């Protein structure tokens, strides 16, 4: 196979106003404009979206799963960051 493949793009869709864009999958396209149109044709055939982002897959940098312990576990013992850590007297409202 001598011919180069169209680059791969990651697709993110906002399903309705007020929500975040969410990753839905990927597709191939020759350029960004085509990637957006392809995303529209592939991933919004049933009114699934109101806005589309595409990112060329090679531009996505991901954290390493091996770092998971170092990255996420230190947050475990910081329970004082959560509101439920604090006791509020019953008579206090709106807090």
């Amino acid at each position, binding site marked *: 196979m001598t011919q180069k493949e*169209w680059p791969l793009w990651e697709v993110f869709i906002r399903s309705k106003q007020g929500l975040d864009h969410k990753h839905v999958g990927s*597709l*191939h*396209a*020759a350029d960004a*404009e*085509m990637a957006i*149109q*392809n995303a529209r*044709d*592939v991933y919004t*055939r049933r009114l699934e979206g109101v806005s589309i982002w595409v990112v060329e897959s090679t531009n996505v940098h991901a954290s390493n799963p091996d770092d998971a312990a170092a990255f996420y576990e230190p947050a475990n013992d910081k329970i004082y960051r959560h509101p439920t850590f604090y006791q509020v007297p019953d008579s206090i409202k709106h807090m």
Partner: protein
Amino acid sequence: MMTDSTMPAQAPAAAPSETQAQLFPFVLQLADTSLILAHRLSEWCGHGPILEQDLAMANIALDFLGEARSYYQYAAELEGKGRTEDDLAYLRSAVEYRNPLLVEQPNGDFAVTIVRQFIYDCFHYHLLLQLKSGPDAQLAAIAEKSVKEAAYHIKWSSEWVIRLGDGTEESRRRVEKAIGNLWRYSGELTTPSATEQALQAAGLVPDYAAIQQQMAAHIARVFEEATLAVPEGVFMQKGGKDGRHTEHLGYLLAELQYMQRTYPGLEW
């Protein structure tokens, strides 16, 4: 509740007025045109150059099919003889079909399909813009819905013309050949038939001179970016809108109408 009707909802239908009824052949022409083009595009399904474009072409085909159904349903209403959308689509012969010649041309390679689509999209989009604010409320409602689809189509086909024109040697050769073969069918779109002339005189159908200018401007812009030349001095074929078709339509209808012709009068 989903209904089968693809016509945009309008005020409760009174019997069409006499003025409205005159629109029947024009609405039928629009219906035939959208159906035939949808049919051609649907022939690509499963055979596209890449999966992503297979989906794109099927989407466009579905848009045209939906639009065709709206026009047929409205045409049936205007005619008032109890014929249905399917009667109109499946039980009329080639000489009764009113689509312009361009849309019945075979798919050929991807370049032919793109050029055919591009030329028609240029006309279609600008026509719908006019119909949308035209005097007939039902036609305006259908156009209002369809013009959004057409805006996408014209973007899609324009970009492909540019890619193919300004792509590789081969794509350029193919797209030039396609333009050379199809250009002769472009004039018919904006050359009014006798029926259209009468309706234009009555103010029911928009003037084509303005549409032709808009078309030409868009084509010039896209061809320039595609580094393609707009053909000049081409003899323009016509006749489709009067039922005089190229030989391709007969075969297309034989396939399209096969079931209804083989098993008349049944529900499917």
